[in-house]
């Protein structure tokens, strides 16, 4: 009975998540937050909800979302933060009529990520990760600063390629770099404000960052699509993908490293994992790049949740793990194997959902003007933010969009928007966050 319950819950969670993932702007964590509130309410009425029911359901939700949120990123141009690096190569595929192929390659990466988690991380984690955790525990704060340093230093100038030497050339090159730095600092300031003066109500406090992320990452892309009035060529449904085992292996190497790093260390998000995966990948092969992003996203989201269940570790990373702790504390290998089994099943099912939903979305964008599709996507995003966090959330989203448009307009790296999390939390972990908040008049 229990096995059937686990199987059924996994399947329902995966299918539901797969369908919801196509909606731009909606994050699996938003739905999980509402689910947790529902379970707590049911339990307050005296009805027990077995963990064998909601844990596999949650796994299905996370795996399905990590696999399929590529669709809004590539086909609708409305990425969340973790899919940020998939958008540009994905849109190249889209503009050459190969959007379907682009999404499927990322999905293969997601499936490879599932294999990596279940086949390699799963057996090794109980022995390796507690040792790693013990050694790294006092060192999390400087890792954040080192990641911030890399983000800032590793952005290279895109301008200044023509003309004679001199200041004009220098300023041309530094326009995008300066915009990147400004984006990072403004996002950091924005992060301090929403961290120390949250504008969302206490009831939905776990959704505090959602409108900021939507504004910083998804909204600028939608606006860009609407105003650039891009025409999407007829999309070709490929029968095979131009990939082989070596491409998959290299993607797993890069994506597993980037996603694993992001999953293990606090505040390091999927977007940073994607950046690391991208830098560790040979840039000349877009297939490896785009597939490694699929691996990284899957390893980040699902790995972070899995780590909560690793026996002897009890590591809480990622929004889903934090939320589930309100309901349940993992008890040992039984839970761990159940989660691993659910990941495997959900990975297979969500991979099979990808062609169906990608074809349906392609049919949608083929039937309607892409500008109209982007406008509808924008309307859905605004409606979702309003539904979850209300007017104050919309205000936060608009401010976030203002900052998120800077890199779009100046051609700098959009990941700089992650200053919203990195800067205030790194300052807090190093012990001077409160001082800065006081100086800013936030306390």
């Amino acid at each position: 009975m229990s096995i059937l319950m686990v199987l059924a819950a996994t399947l329902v969670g995966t299918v539901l998540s797969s369908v919801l993932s196509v909606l731009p702007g909606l994050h699996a964590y938003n739905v999980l937050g509402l689910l947790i509130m529902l379970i707590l309410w049911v339990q307050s009425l005296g009805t027990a909800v077995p963990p064998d029911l909601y844990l596999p359901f949650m796994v299905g939700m996370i795996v399905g979302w990590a696999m399929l949120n590529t669709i809004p990123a590539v086909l609708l141009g409305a990425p969340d933060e973790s899919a940020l690096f998939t958008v540009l190569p994905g849109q190249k595929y889209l503009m050459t009529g190969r959007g379907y192929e682009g999404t499927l390659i990322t999905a293969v990466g997601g499936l490879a990520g599932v294999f990596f988690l279940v086949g390699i991380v799963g057996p090794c984690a109980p022995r390796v990760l507690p040792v790693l955790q013990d050694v790294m525990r006092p060192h999390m704060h400087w890792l954040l600063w080192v990641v911030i340093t890399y983000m800032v230093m590793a952005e290279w100038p895109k301008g200044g390629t023509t003309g004679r030497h001199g200041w004009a050339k220098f300023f041309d090159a530094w326009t995008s770099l300066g915009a990147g730095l400004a984006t990072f600092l403004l996002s950091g300031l924005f992060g301090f404000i929403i961290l120390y003066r949250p504008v969302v109500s206490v009831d939905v406090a776990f959704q505090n960052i959602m409108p900021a992320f939507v504004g910083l990452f998804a909204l600028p892309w939608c606006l860009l699509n609407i105003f650039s009035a891009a025409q999407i060529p007829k999309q070709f449904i490929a029968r095979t993908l131009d990939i082989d085992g070596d491409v998959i292996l290299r993607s797993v190497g890069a994506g597993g490293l980037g996603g694993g790093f992001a999953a293990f260390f606090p505040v390091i998000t999927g977007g940073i994992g994607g950046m690391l995966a991208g830098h560790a990948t040979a840039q000349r092969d877009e297939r490896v790049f785009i597939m490694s992003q699929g691996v990284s996203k899957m390893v980040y989201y699902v790995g972070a949740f899995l780590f909560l269940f690793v026996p002897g570790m009890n590591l809480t990373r990622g929004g889903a793990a934090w939320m589930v702790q309100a309901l349940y504390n993992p008890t040992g290998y039984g839970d761990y194997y159940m989660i691993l089994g659910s990941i495997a099943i959900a990975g297979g099912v969500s991979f099979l959902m990808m062609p169906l939903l990608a074809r349906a979305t392609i049919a949608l964008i083929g039937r309607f003007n892409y500008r109209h599709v982007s406008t509808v996507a924008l309307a859905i995003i605004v409606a979702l933010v309003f539904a979850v966090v209300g007017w104050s959330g919309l205000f936060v989203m608009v401010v976030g969009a203002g900052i998120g448009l800077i890199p779009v307009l100046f051609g700098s790296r959009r990941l700089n928007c992650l200053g919203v999390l990195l800067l205030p939390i790194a300052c807090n972990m190093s012990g001077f966050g409160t001082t800065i908040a006081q100086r800013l008049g936030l306390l």
Partner: protein
Amino acid sequence: MKGISHFITGVAAASCFPWTVAAAQAGSPLYFVLGAVFGLLPDTLDFKFYRFFYKHDLYVQPDPANPDPQPIADAMARGIEMARTEARDVRIKLSTIRLGADYWQQYVIKFDPVAGEVRVKFGPCVNTGQVPVPGTIPKHPRIGVARLAGPIDQTYDAVTSVDIFDGPSFSFEPDAQGRVAVHFLPWHRTWSHSLITGAALGLLGAAIWGWRAGLIIPVAFSAHVMEDQLGHMGSNLFWPITRRRFSGLKRMHATDARPNFLTVWTCLLLIFWNLYRFAPNPLYHLSLWDVVFYGGVLPLGLFGLASHLLTRGKAAETVVIDVSKEESDAMMA
């Protein structure tokens, strides 16, 4: 090497000093951040600052509307002739040819010292990921050839590919024997990659942050320079004592995936080992052998085995322009 490899090498170098780990345990990220910054700084100085102020004698800006390889070849030959006749360094800057938001016309430049020629050949249009767009090789003219005024000495790769973002520079330096040395990217790996610059920055760092930082800075900086010596171009290791770039060991190219990945992995293991051995009361007990075997030999060995099994029998993947093909290309010969 790629930026991420240099960066993580700087962090690993900093972790070798006990005071770095002790400070981190006490809440200060300073020494790790210094290691990271100075591990990447030599390239930052070159690519974000110096190259925009580097003066060239000749600027070649091909016309995207009428791309023609012959003027490029002629300009290269003219630069060498100027170096010979005027007995001075002549620097030339080539621009890329942008065809659209994401498309670039690729071309390759090849010096042939035996035939005394420079050849420029137009390849396909590529996107910003340097992936060729099928069916975009131009019809005519594809190849420009110009005779060189005298013998040359090539100090870098025989073929240079020009495609995305910024184009390359060359400097032509005449010598007493009447030969002209051709240097690639003359603004790169000069003063910014000198061990003496690293030492000077160390002194500056010591004045600002104390002697411990003053030790970490030159070590992280020099680690970058030494890694670059594994490649082809080499660096000016002792600027300002000499103006000459010392030739690299030619063991790898900067963008080769395997050595970069190996460097990143090795550095991560080294950081872990240093954090462990400087930890006051570790819960688990490890030997260096444990770390090397379970963290390095086993995973990398399995990865290497899998890679070998998946790629055996396949020709080495060509990267944009296959140089070996270029060498035997009848049109280029």
